[in-house]
């Protein structure tokens, strides 16, 4: 029976055994003979489902379990517990018909052959994935066109810039037209312009190939621009799964009022209205409770020399940070 969803994850767990070393040389010597191991719960009871053609963003701080989840989905890791099903396969069995339909791109792990031009890796992948030659030519032409790398196909990989290399990594991963694509930090280390190009490419690829894509990123911009749906993971647990704008409604109980004053105002007085996040005359940013926002604005307008005033939702970055650190941004 075919599953309803392309990706099904049910109560996925992945624990690592890690050994702990006491500090100093004596700790090092002790650890030669006796090691204390403890479990790190990299992924702890996560469940979600993803439909065909969806582009979902995974967000969370370092060590949240995003990459571990992707590795379980792509079949690199044996889960400690729970069920994973992708395209009707159990990933860790690593059956070839499954592997032929997926790709994993890791921003920090290259698959390109370092000393050879990228085209050699593409040819090798064509053979490994048994891509018929006409289809290979077509895909390669399309991808090199989209990413604008035609003239550097024959340049040794080590001589490429990071951005060029990342583009080549994408081509190598997509040469077999995978149905499911796992992108782990695809924009890491890239400059802003290149990040944007990558995002444009990912969006276009998702739309033109109906590929199901999971993307992890540190950069909120990646997620904001690309994904309607996000899954937020922290300390191995899923803490949010839904539309991006829902995060704001769910977690942001504050609004930001930006005021521009015409005359200097003592900061003490502003503090009575809300939390002063920033005050650099003439501009101040004050965070106030969502429900009290209009009242606070009215008070500002009445009692202060206001030149301009603006109420806005908190930045998504701030909300996410607040969720992760458990601290209140207000």
């Amino acid at each position, binding site marked *: 029976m075919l599953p309803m969803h392309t990706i099904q994850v049910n109560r996925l767990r992945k624990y*690592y055994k890690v050994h702990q070393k006491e500090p100093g040389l004596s700790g090092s010597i002790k650890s030669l003979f006796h090691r204390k191991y403890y479990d790190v719960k990299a992924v702890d009871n996560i469940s979600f489902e993803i439909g065909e053609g969806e582009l979902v963003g995974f967000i969370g701080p370092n060590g949240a379990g995003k*990459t571990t989840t992707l*590795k379980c989905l*792509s*079949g*690199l*890791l*044996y889960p400690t517990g729970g069920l994973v099903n992708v395209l009707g396969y159990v990933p*860790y069995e*690593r059956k*070839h*018909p499954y*592997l*032929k339909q*997926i*790709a*994993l791109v*890791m*921003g*920090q*792990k*290259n*698959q390109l*052959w370092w*000393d*050879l031009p990228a085209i*050699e*890796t593409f*040819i*090798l*992948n064509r*053979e*490994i*994935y*048994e891509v018929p030659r006409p289809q290979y030519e077509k895909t390669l032409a399309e991808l090199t066109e989209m990413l604008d790398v035609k003239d550097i196909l024959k340049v*040794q990989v080590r001589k490429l810039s990071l951005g060029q290399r990342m583009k080549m990594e994408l081509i190598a991963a997509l040469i077999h037209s995978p149905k499911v694509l796992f992108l*782990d*930090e695809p924009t890491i280390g890239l400059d802003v312009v290149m990040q944007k190009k990558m995002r444009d490419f990912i969006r276009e690829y998702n739309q033109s190939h109906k590929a199901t894509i999971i993307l992890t990123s540190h950069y909120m911009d990646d997620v904001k621009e690309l994904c309607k749906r996000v899954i937020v993971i922290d300390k191995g647990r899923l803490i949010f799964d839904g539309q991006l704008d829902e995060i704001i409604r769910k977690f942001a109980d504050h609004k930001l009022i930006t005021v521009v004053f015409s005359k200097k105002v003592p900061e003490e007085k502003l503090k009575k209205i809300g939390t002063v996040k920033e005050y650099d005359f003439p501009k101040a940013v004050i965070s106030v409770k969502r429900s009290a926002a209009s009242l606070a604005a009215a008070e500002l307008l009445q009692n202060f020399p206001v030149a301009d005033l603006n109420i806005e939702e908190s930045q998504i970055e701030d909300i996410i940070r607040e969720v992760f650190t458990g601290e209140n941004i207000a």
Partner: protein
Amino acid sequence: MAAISKYLSIIRTSLQEYFIYRLNFALWRVRAVMQLLILYFLWLTAYGGLNNLFGYSASQMLTYILGISLIRSYVLAARLSEGVGAQIITGDISNMLIKPISYIRYIFSRDFSDKFINIFFSSIELIVIMVVLKPPLIFQSNPLLLIGTVIFILVGLTLYFLLNFSLSLSAFWLHGDDWWAPRFIFGIIVDFLAGGLFPIDVLPEAVRQVVMLTPFPYLLFFPMKVYLGQAQTSYILMGFLISGFWIFGLFLFQRWLWQQGLKSYVAAGS
């Protein structure tokens, strides 16, 4: 057929890698020739005016030394599979694990390219040495012994690959640079017990008998022994049984290690 072309493609791509760094390539061959010449002259000096040392005549010993250097390039050339341990530790192996390809065959193909290059160049070098130094060599003409030699070279090649691969898989349970330590010991044992520096029967009888039960002499020593016509039929059969037992055992062992290893694989790095 498609399956074979996958692996041929790996061999082709691996071969390309060799020719990129010309200086590195040239020096590697210089080193191989120096190694051979040192051994050659060492033994030549050892014989001085003697006819016989350890039951080997000078021409037998020189044939042994030169023959071993050639067999070495068939059997021990496995530069690429030696990196498997490091790939496991760094997580670089992940890129191959998610491809529709058998990893052990992938590695074997990589090794094959190494052997190919080695055989090609060491054959040329050997011919040059033979022409220049004109050593008194023994040329075996018995076809049965020649076939036996080829069979035992294949046995040695398979054994070494399985030993090497199994050893590399230990990296699944090791951390950081620890993967390197067992390989270092392994290298010394192979140099010593495989017969690369001297024939095994130079060792005291009791030691020799124990060593012959290990897989090591079947890597280099045994094929050469068969070639020289010094081995009796019963001795050859015994060697065949022992090495066959090791191949069978190591095959099962590496498969078990691989399966267990994947379960504890942590795919390091993000």
